[in-house]
């Protein structure tokens, strides 16, 4: 079986600077991999490169069997990237936000309802505007959008940032559930204690290189 993520000596240049310098990493389906390292080491760049957002200028890189050196567009529909922003529409309710993404892939209303239920954002909460939610509820809503989009590879950049302990536990449970359902997860985090407990493997990103 081919790897979900397979980077070999990949180089990504950002603002004239090699943000990824001959980085190599291989991730198998269902793994939860923690990317750890100091600020500016290239963790976010690696996630964005996996999402097809940054061009690979040298080396080899494939995600979900798509060669990113040739095609960076088609992989995007199968990948979910959650960065510091949640990517939600503040004036819409939770259910409307999730339905928006469900429409894109033709997911049924039943699928949306079951996802909202699984994430604990159903019932009256689902009819709340996103602008009135707590940080943890917004994060759960954003992750629910990834689920209805049927993202096969989750790329999470500091998913615990700004959340209290209870909300962090909820996010961890969602990530574990997604992994057991077949999704592959890459997490860039400074929350090493928590993320190590969650991850099946951790690697370090240092000066644009991946160190096992």
């Amino acid at each position: 079986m081919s790897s979900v993520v397979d980077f070999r000596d990949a180089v990504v240049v950002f603002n004239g600077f090699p943000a990824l310098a001959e980085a190599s990493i291989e991730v198998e389906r269902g793994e939860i991999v923690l990317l750890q390292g100091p600020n500016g080491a290239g963790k976010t760049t690696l996630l964005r490169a996996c999402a097809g957002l940054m061009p690979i200028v040298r080396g080899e890189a494939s995600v979900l069997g798509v060669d990113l050196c040739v095609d960076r567009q088609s992989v995007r529909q199968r990948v979910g990237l959650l960065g510091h922003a949640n990517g939600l529409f503040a004036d819409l309710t939770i259910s409307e936000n999730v339905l928006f993404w469900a429409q894109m892939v033709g997911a049924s209303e039943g699928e949306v309802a079951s996802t909202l239920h699984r994430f604990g954002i159903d019932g009256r909460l689902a009819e709340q505007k996103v602008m009135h939610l707590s940080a943890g509820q917004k994060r759960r809503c954003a992750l629910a959008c990834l689920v209805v989009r049927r993202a096969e590879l989750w790329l999470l950049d500091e998913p615990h940032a700004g959340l209290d302990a209870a909300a962090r536990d909820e996010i961890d449970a969602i990530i574990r559930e997604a992994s057991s359902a077949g999704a592959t997860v890459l997490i860039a985090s400074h929350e090493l204690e928590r993320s190590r407990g969650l991850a099946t493997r951790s690697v370090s990103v240092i000066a644009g290189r991946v160190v096992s």
Partner: protein
Amino acid sequence: MSAQHSLSRVARAVAAKDLRIELRSRVVINQVFPFAGLVMVMFAFALDNDDVLTRVAGGLVWLATLFSLIIIIQRSFAVDTADGALEAQRVAGLDPAGIFVGKALAVMVQLVTLEIMLFVAAVVLYRVQLNADGTVLLVTCVLSATAGLSFVGTLYGGLTAGSRGRETLLPLLMLPVVAPVLIGATRATESAFTSGGAAVSDGWPWVGVLVVFAAVFGLGGILSFGSLIEE
């Protein structure tokens, strides 16, 4: 998979989402409509001459529309950029042409609603006359000019969405480009109102200009919007 993110599916979802956000927030209804109405009233105070007002009514309506367009476009992209939703759509590989068409459709609906209010205000405040032939010309002019304005607005809204100083950059870039719409729509509207001795038939060539303008920018937007919102 790409068929699932088809242009029409994305366009419908984006247009419905933008209109739903507007209905919820009522920014256009509560702020832009009163602003445009106020502009019409202020013009009436400033010119204070029925003959002059009747002659320039068409131009005033379209000027008020242009000013309002700037606010509508800024609002349309502000709701998408506030929490990274525009980037989320790009990252998810949604067809950028679908995003462009959807956002332009939502802007069109808001603009047409605004223009109906402005033309009613012109009839009441400026006492312009409108016969049956003029009404047909006016409706065609409104639809074609609105399409052109919405396409250009959405295109430049996407271009400036992620930039610093976008509030001032958008009008600086967009207004010179929509000058042909202002000229064409004003001439066609003057003909529809038969103001200044113009005949209704004089307005149809200007409508042709508006249709060509809308077609060029509609096609241009569909082809280039992806590159504009891409890093």
